[in-house]
């Protein structure tokens, strides 16, 4: 009983009870605080906290889409996509190997020197060593000509197909990768087929490399084979200036709005490198071709590597674009231009354009020299860039090249003269060996002159003196006004539509428009070349002097002339429903007899005049040749021109060919440009017997 009385636990006095209640109260408050806090977190803040947690533990990986194809007007594929097989190392799976190599290197370093070891540097070296080991294995398997990987070739032995540099892990690439994309696999070989693509039989060799890796490299392990899509240009350098090329881009078109339950905008996003247009249609229609990115939602480890893929959505390919180009004519134009060579056997810089007279659709647009966009599709190397730069192939001479049009401008001089009524189609002018303007004799290209010349004969033989006289009678303002009326100073290939960002849009980047010159008195004063002289007018009348235009402009002029109108709006996009109306176009303003005289003179030019080299039996062609002078390395060289349309009686196509002569080449309008025109037209009509298509009236 006594013992029981000593073990009293309950308060017996009011004071003790009060103390107990206070303690209970304090505990209750504390408990309520904890429960309340928990409830607040769980019920009120849960959404934000979950989002925070998700953001820290998840990420979105954006995958680039396949770009849309580009086809010609008949559906032939001009730009496509191909599988690119790359070899990648899963860095998360290599952690053990990194650690083991790190410890080995650290021990060796400590044994070698007693001073403090830079552990960061050792870790980096360990990573490089491990990755290099795997890369050696990859090359060991894929390169059948170098089975003993990384072995230096003995004297006289075949050299490796790839430079040793491509077989080394690039430490800078690795650093960048770990800094920016640690979670993604590291690329060991970017394109299994690429390194040998340029070698003889390289395409087959490339496929063999892929096949050897697939069949011989162990399936399990940290080295993965991944396939993605790369741009391919089946015809190599054909139409390269129109098609353009692509370059690497991390700016992927996002498409993550459909992850309804994830606030994707605040989540970390990793972008796999995609492609974006860098030139040509690839650039100007990038908004159509680019497609929509795919995405993958991943959980990530504390080290930042991807862990589990929770959801994904496949990328969507970009839309297809149908160009107005005709593959057959384009190929003919390029091969014909390639046949015109200088004394060293190097093809001369040149351009060729063919248009549909009614619609303005461009059937061929060739520029020489050209480049192979396939070599730029993977990674643009400095070597390739410099090679293209050195050859001058970046310039699209058909749209960006600026040249004096020479005698092809004489048609405009004649139109200006007849519209100003200073000459008519049947007027005959006496044309001697030269024409005196001021104190200078302006020469005829025929030493004895042509005697009596009318419009028809002038166009056939390209008489200079006739044009000096008419140009001076009409005056420079009339010549300039006429040139402007035909749009020689108006940028082409601009569309009224806008791209995806609402920006102004041209069908080809840097299209014809910059630097065009239709000179007048103000222009000469503006460039501080002094006041306008009659000699300037004489030069202007034969398409020389300050006048600068592009081959595309002259082709558009020929198309306008064929329809008896002033403007043609060329386009590179095919539209079977195009109505053939051209913005800003109006009738030329000549009567039928005058128009017929111009047409007749242009037909005579081909039948018996300076353009005989373009003659095709059975196909009436209306054309005008031109040989203008330009300065190359401060010395005079010749530009060969030919513009026109065919068939002459019911025009369907218009054309322009330009060849840049060199100092040591004998370059003349008809002789040099004529054969190119002939081959293009022969291709257009098929066998050269009749037109391939009825004119679209």
């Amino acid at each position, binding site marked *: 009983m006594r013992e029981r009385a000593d073990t009293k636990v309950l308060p017996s006095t009011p004071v003790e009870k009060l103390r107990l209640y206070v303690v209970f109260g304090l505990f209750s408050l504390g408990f309520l605080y904890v429960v309340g806090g928990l409830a607040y977190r769980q019920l009120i803040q849960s959404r934000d906290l979950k989002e925070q947690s998700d953001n820290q533990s998840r990420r979105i990986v954006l*995958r680039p*889409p*396949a770009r849309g194809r580009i086809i010609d007007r008949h559906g032939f594929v001009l730009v496509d*996509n191909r*599988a690119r097989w790359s070899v990648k190392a899963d860095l998360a799976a290599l952690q053990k190997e990194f650690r083991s190599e790190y410890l080995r290197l650290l021990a060796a370093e400590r044994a070698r020197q007693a001073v403090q070891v830079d552990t960061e540097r050792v870790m980096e070296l360990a990573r490089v060593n491990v990755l290099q080991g795997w890369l*050696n*294995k990859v090359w*060991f*398997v894929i390169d*059948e000509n170098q*089975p*003993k*990987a*990384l*072995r230096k070739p003995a004297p006289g032995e075949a050299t490796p197909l790839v430079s040793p540099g491509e077989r080394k892990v690039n430490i800078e690439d690795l650093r960048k990768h770990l800094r920016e994309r640690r979670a993604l696999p590291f690329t060991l070989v970017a394109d299994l087929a690429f390194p040998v693509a340029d070698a003889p039989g390289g395409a087959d060799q490339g*496929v*063999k490399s*892929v*096949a*050897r890796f*697939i*069949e*011989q*490299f*162990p*399936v*399990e392990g940290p080295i993965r084979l991944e*396939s*993605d*899509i790369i741009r391919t240009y089946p015809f190599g350098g054909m139409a390269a200036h129109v098609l353009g090329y692509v370059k690497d881009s991390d700016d992927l078109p996002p498409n993550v709005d459909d992850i309804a339950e994830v606030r994707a905008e605040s989540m970390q996003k990793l972008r796999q490198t995609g492609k974006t247009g860098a030139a040509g249609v690839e650039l100007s229609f990038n908004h159509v071709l680019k*497609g929509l990115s*795919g995405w993958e939602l991943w959980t990530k480890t504390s080290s930042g590597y991807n862990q589990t893929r929770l959801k994904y959505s*496949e*990328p*969507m*390919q970009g839309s297809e674009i149908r160009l107005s180009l005709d593959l057959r004519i384009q190929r003919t134009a390029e091969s014909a231009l390639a046949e015109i060579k200088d004394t060293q056997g190097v093809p001369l810089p040149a351009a060729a354009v063919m248009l549909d007279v009614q619609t303005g659709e461009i059937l061929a647009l060739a520029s020489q020299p050209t480049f192979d966009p396939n070599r730029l599709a993977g990674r643009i190397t400095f070597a390739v860039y410099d090679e293209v730069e050195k050859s001058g192939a970046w310039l699209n001479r058909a749209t960006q090249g600026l040249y004096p049009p020479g005698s092809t401008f004489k048609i405009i001089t004649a139109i200006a003269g007849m519209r100003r009524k200073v000459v008519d189609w049947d007027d005959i002018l006496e044309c001697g060996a030269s024409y005196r303007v001021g104190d200078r004799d302006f020469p005829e290209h025929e030493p004895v002159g042509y005697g009596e010349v009318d419009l028809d004969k002038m166009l056939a033989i390209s008489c200079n003196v006739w044009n000096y006289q008419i140009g001076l009678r009409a005056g420079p303002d009339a010549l300039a006004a006429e040139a402007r009326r035909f749009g020689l100073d108006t940028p082409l290939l601009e569309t009224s539509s806008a791209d995806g960002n609402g920006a102004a849009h041209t069908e080809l980047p840097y299209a014809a428009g910059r630097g065009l010159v239709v000179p007048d008195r103000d222009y000469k004063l503006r460039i501080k070349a002094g006041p306008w002289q009659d000699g300037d007018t004489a030069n202007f009348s034969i398409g020389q002097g300050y006048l600068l235009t592009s081959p595309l402009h002259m082709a558009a002029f020929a198309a306008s002339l064929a329809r008896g109108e002033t403007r043609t709006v060329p386009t590179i996009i095919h539209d079977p429903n195009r109505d053939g109306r051209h913005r800003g176009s109006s009738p030329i303003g000549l009567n039928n007899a005058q128009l017929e005289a111009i047409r007749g003179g242009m037909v005579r030019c081909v039948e018996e005049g300076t353009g005989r080299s373009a003659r095709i039996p059975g196909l009436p062609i209306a054309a005008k040749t031109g040989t203008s002078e330009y300065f190359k390395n401060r010395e005079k060289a010749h530009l060969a021109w030919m513009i026109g349309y065919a068939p002459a009686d019911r025009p369907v196509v218009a054309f322009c060919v330009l060849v840049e002569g060199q100092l040591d080449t004998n370059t003349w309008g008809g002789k040099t440009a004529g054969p190119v025109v002939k081959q293009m037209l022969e291709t257009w009509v098929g066998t050269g017997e009749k037109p391939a298509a009825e004119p679209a009236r």
Partner: protein
Amino acid sequence: MDQNRQGARASYVALSVFVAGWILLPSAVRRLNREAFVEFQAPALHLVGKSRDLATFWEKKSRGSEELVAAGRDLARINAALELKLKGMEDVRRENTRLREVTRYNVPAEYLSVVARVATRDSSSWWQRIVIRKGRNDGIRPGAPVVFGDTVVGRVTAVHLTTSEVDLVTSPGFRCTAYLEGDDQNRIVLINGVAANSLGTAKARVCVIPYDYLLPAGTPARVTTTGMGGVFPSGLTLGYLDGGAYATQVGNFKESLLVPSRDLYNLQEVSVLVPIIQTPGEALMQGDQFQ
């Protein structure tokens, strides 16, 4: 009570010591142990295979005379058809020989063929892997292709003294390149086995099918080896493309399933094509020094 507790503790200690010892053992010893286990069970595998052969023998021997007569008749018809084919082939062979003599073209053999009976299927992955009754003693090496007639069965993945393990084309560890019948441009596609669930059907995936490839109408498209990877000779049948390539892979490429052309359940005998020259892949599999 105390004795029981002590006994339990002792067994836990023993287990821990064993596990720790196993973990600390050098990998070479562990590998040797595994090899020894495989070699230990090899006679049993041989016995199983031979028992099955014997069972088949008696099953056939017990058939009635009418059945045998009917089978003999069918066989005679097949023989007649084959003889006709053989005559046509004989002309081709003669022409081939003549051309080789004229051009002095002498192609060295690339493979040695080793015929082997199937001992058993690996129960751990059911029909994805088989075990054959030939091994290192018979010259078989890892990585060698395994065929039946002109059809690919799989690849040798592990070789023991008298047995070898073969991954079938439907195994997730199997990967090779192939051509699709009807693709004039001969673009390569990737064949990859797919892990089947325990009751599912084994299958292989055909990846990176060009977007513009159209299945030939009528007969299913044959899928053949390319011969470019250095492992499989060209032109062997891998199987047939499952009707209708389905979902795109990365926007531009299609994917489909491969229907193996031979019933992989009933394989009795296969040929192992052992490459005369060791391939780099084989060296990697064996962990050889490749420098």
